[in-house]
């Protein structure tokens, strides 16, 4: 019943055997122990499970793991590199863009996917970029300020 699944997650190749109905979020959280990615609704409505698959933001609760076979996944655990936080992470910390933190991983991944595609989004485009992610704590505006600060070059990626 189980099928072979090859995935590169945060730069690390994995070879797994999963049931056909296993979701990508289940592989990440339950098989690989990458619990930074959350599940808030299991119906692709809240965005807490957002990760990047082959460079695009996807809701990992609505993708079968086998659909991602051969793909490259980036989760919140892979954002920081070489012991340095990603500019978005730094900006979120400075702007109070998180409170309970349960939406934060998804929010960061949506923001990163948006900036990768369009490094100079307008405020409206930033709002559109995170429209699929619910945050029940912050009211979004601090998140928008944090992303704007990154867009404005206030946080440089450390090499």
């Amino acid at each position, binding site marked *: 019943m189980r099928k072979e699944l090859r995935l590169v997650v945060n730069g690390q190749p994995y070879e797994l055997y999963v049931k056909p109905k296993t979701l990508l979020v289940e592989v990440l*959280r339950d098989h690989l122990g*990458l*619990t*930074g*990615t*959350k*599940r*808030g*609704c*299991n*119906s692709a*409505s*809240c965005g*807490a499970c957002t990760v990047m698959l082959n460079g695009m933001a996807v809701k990992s609760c609505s993708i079968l793991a086998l659909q991602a076979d051969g793909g490259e996944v980036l*989760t*919140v*655990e892979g*954002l*920081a590199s070489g012991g340095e*936080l990603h500019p978005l*992470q730094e900006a*979120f*910390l*400075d*702007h*109070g863009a*998180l*409170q*309970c*933190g*349960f*939406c*934060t*991983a998804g929010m*960061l991944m949506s923001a990163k996917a948006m900036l990768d595609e369009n490094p100079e989004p307008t405020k409206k485009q930033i*709002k*559109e970029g*995170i*429209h699929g*992610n*619910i*945050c*029940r*704590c*912050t*009211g*979004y*505006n*601090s*998140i*928008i300020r944090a992303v704007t600060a990154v867009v404005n070059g206030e946080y440089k990626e450390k090499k």
Partner: protein
Amino acid sequence: MSKYSVIGQRVRRVDGPDKVTGSAKYTFDMVLPNMLYGKILRSPYPHAKILNIDTSKAEKLIGVKAVVTGKDTLGRKQGIWRRFPELCDEEILCREKVRYIGDPVAAVAAIDEDTAEEALDLIEVEYEPLPAVFDPLEAIKEDAPQIHDGVELNMNVTRHIEWGDVDEAFKKCDYVREDKFKCSSQAHVCMETHDAVASFDHGGKLTVWTSTQSSYYIQRLLADILDLREGDIRVIKPPTGGGFGSKFELDSAQFCAVVLSMKLRQPVKIVLSREEEFTATKRRTPMYYYLRLGAKKDGTLLAKEVRVITEGGAYTAMGATALYLTGFFSSFPYKYPNYRYDGYRVYTNTAPSSAMRGFGAPQSTFTGESQLDMLAHDLGIDPIEIRRKNGMTPDYEVPGQAFIQSCGLHECLDSIDEYIKKRGELPPNHGIGVAAYGFMSGGIFNWFDTPYAFSAALVRVNIDGKVDLFTGACDIGQGSDTTLSMICAEELGVRLEDIRIHASDTDICPADLGAWGSRETLMNGNAVKMAAADAKSQILEYAAAKMGANIVYDLDIKDQWVHLVDRPERGVSYFDMVKEAIRGRDGEVIIGRGHYTPHRKGMISPAYSFGVQAVEVEVDPETGKYGLTNVTTAHESGTVINPVGIEGQLEGAIMMAGGYGFCEDQPMDGGNILNPSIADYKLIRSLDMPETEILEIDTYEPEGPFGAKEAGEGLTNPTAGAIGNAVYDAVGVRVTDLPITPEKVFRALRDKEKQSKQS
């Protein structure tokens, strides 16, 4: 030296790095060795007798380890109003009767969630459906079905508040208005649903990790219902994905996980699904409001009469407190010389209503601020002016109820007045509405019957100067870990990075009532400040001896520097002094203790914060469709300890309270909530979020730590009322039942058009 080194600084959250990297482990993320997964079977009927539950087929399913029902419990009813046994009315696992769609009847533990889910379908429950009642106005009729034995007319709780001579005062009024309003339900929608991991070991000790607003309450309530010793139960709150009032009662995830674990002596984890979260946890209390308001021609308010009937749902929960607070806050923030409130909480066969951010005050503020604008309009008085004329001032006593010390309401009114005038003439179909509010900084009431201080803290100063702060306060995202660490650092004279906070673990932290009623900053903050001051005084005793200062000099610590207050250059490094002090006391570490319970502060709260909010809307007069374009809030919360935290509370409150006023609702049919998913439950997302502006007003609260008071919930009070007033300002129609949806605005516009044609 500046007055404060840590307080008022823009700092990063102490839990921030863990949360932005995905390292923070929530209950939702926990996996223990040998852990099982639980699921809960819930009633499909709003009201029914349980005739029989057959679990035999479910038990035989491979992978199922245990099935429990109410028969596996002591059958005790529980509730958070522990002092009043008649209000402890919830079994959690029902034995004889279910009272709403979602009432738990059985729970399963299995090797994985899928197996547990499958087993639920194999449990056979024989019900005898009973007539059910859903509307409180129906439930109080003589012939309505009785939901709890012996509770006549389904009357759960009644509350009365009165001062002055209301009837006499109404006779003296030049103008009196009577109005009715309806306040809707609202779901908390915490991003982390209710969940728990329970582990009962062979030594008879129970550990529960859970997403909660009060680890102490859960510990005590479990002790009651399980007949265990409080000290044999350890409740730990890992990082928690939101609470908003939904997570300080004992819930079905916690209780069922514990019952299963006690049967199996294996860890059991239960996570409620999003649908369960919507249908089978508590929610904001829907209310029918009747208001009578009387004034002199010049706008002086003479009397207010308030009658409220609330849809209680199946159990008391925290609804009794919401019933009281909506009555108390209906008098806010004005000086009514004569006031009368009668509140009735009625059982219905719906999901229990309870606490939600604002705790009855968003309802009272929506209704009160709507009616006040209506009255001002009738009398031809400016909305700001009528609020100025009647608004509370510092050192005001709410007759027989409460003492208000600091109050910056009038400065807030001035500030919003200036903002509106600056805004000038609005574009067509735009409108601005204002609402004024106040809120408490923690409740004084002790219906929980705790024998402990309301808040307590311990501070341990180690040999290297690093400080461990132990507190029962619960950070549910609002940022209390950061705010309390800042208070500790400031008082002790060290830096924020010198503090490590250990919070909300009942085994190692002193009891605290938890995060509700906006209590942590003032109450736990006072306890932390006292503990830090105690530790500091122990260091300064050695410093005084060591430094050989004249005894007329005062010593203090600031920025890690132990020094003479009047001659700050004469000092010693804090780190050196700590080392010597500990050596001087035979190696014993320094431990400071602090606690706080409000005394002589009236019946409600030790302090109140105030504010005024202006909401601007743009309405399409053809369709009624409208959006919030700007929300500007002048507010005061005493000394601002953590400015980033306050901004977050304010903007977050606008998202939640804007949703309450604008789009959030839980329509029902026959006790069924019709929109139990995030796709169907409309809430404010990033594109709907208005611009937000904060006008900070300085006040100092003598009762609060460094002058601080509430800054969390009060901000959810004004928005719905201000939206209603803004819609009226824009297009001249008044909607009196929440939420003020475009559809209701459209209907009101159509009615207005019809009326104008007729006349």
